[in-house]
């Protein structure tokens, strides 16, 4: 995780690392709070006594760091019925449709051409996902 922060501070050209870390951190905090809220709401709806697992789907474009959400979840879920829940992250790659060969395929990082025919006549169609797919409760 420290590597990630290093990379980010380099890119944003910010004065200090701590500022950078704060920036990144808050984003996941909001997301994690929402995950917990939805999970608890669903659990109540189904009269569950315990949340065992939450299955999240996260597109590569969303810029969400799994470890970060995991860390906040441990902190936020304390004293709730989700405190022992595991989070599972399904990552969806950035996917594009090719207008030349009609294929839809994941893109290589920073090399945005159709992997089949190398055309750059492509458009992103997937990778923005950010939702809870399912949960295990008891």
């Amino acid at each position, binding site marked *: 995780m420290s590597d990630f922060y290093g990379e980010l501070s380099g890119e944003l050209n910010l004065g200090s690392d701590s500022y950078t870390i704060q920036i990144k951190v808050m984003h996941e905090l909001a997301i994690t709070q*929402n995950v917990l*809220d939805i999970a608890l709401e669903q659990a109540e709806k189904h009269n569950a006594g315990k949340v065992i697992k939450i299955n999240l789907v996260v597109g590569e474009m969303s810029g969400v760091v799994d470890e970060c959400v995991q860390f906040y979840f441990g902190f936020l879920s304390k004293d709730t019925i989700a405190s022992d829940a595991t989070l599972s992250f399904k990552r969806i790659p950035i996917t*594009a449709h090719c207008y030349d060969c009609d294929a839809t395929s994941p893109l290589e990082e920073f090399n*945005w051409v159709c992997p089949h025919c190398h055309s750059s006549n492509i458009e992103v169609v997937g990778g923005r996902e950010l939702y809870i*797919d399912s949960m295990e409760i008891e």
Partner: protein
Amino acid sequence: MEIKVLQDILSANDRIAERNRHLLDEKGVFALNLMASPGAGKTSLLLETIKRLKNRVSIAVIEADIASSLDADKISKEGVTTLQINTGGACHVDANMLNNALESISLEDTDLLILENVGNLVCPAEFTLGVDRNVMISSIPEGDDKPYKYPLMFSVANAVLVNKIDLLPYLEFDFRNFSRGVGVVNPKAALMQISCKTGDGMNEWISWLLAEMKK
């Protein structure tokens, strides 16, 4: 027991964004969300825009900053209504913060509302606000690879302004690579080159903005 949920994680935010959209529509306010990395030129663009439009359009500005009020002070000197919101350490404005801010603005008297979002290319893109248009600034010193590194931000922008083109003689920037990247994530985005320093491209930007306000 396994249950299907299929719920967007930020759906609570999206619901508030819808309320904002209704409120702004009802009051006839055209709202812009201005996003960019720190120092790309958000405040500079605001000032240039205000100078050119304040006699024709009634403008209000919301300045979101993690802590300081430096930008808000600059804007209010131009004589437009300026509301400063501190995001309390948060890296973005969410729909609820905007909703609270809207209560403190006299919307009846406003034609154009511009929000300067927190300087950041990641987080603000994730939170829909219910505004009419998202505008993002990417500046020459940041390099031409930004669409590839921050695709989400570019995908939500209705217009992408490349600022600081007066610096082109001193820095390398491949517009073809840049616009190809924008085209892949967001082929509909309007792409403009501007300089807040020399005023280049300002006419095109102002025309775009006025045309969008009429839509």
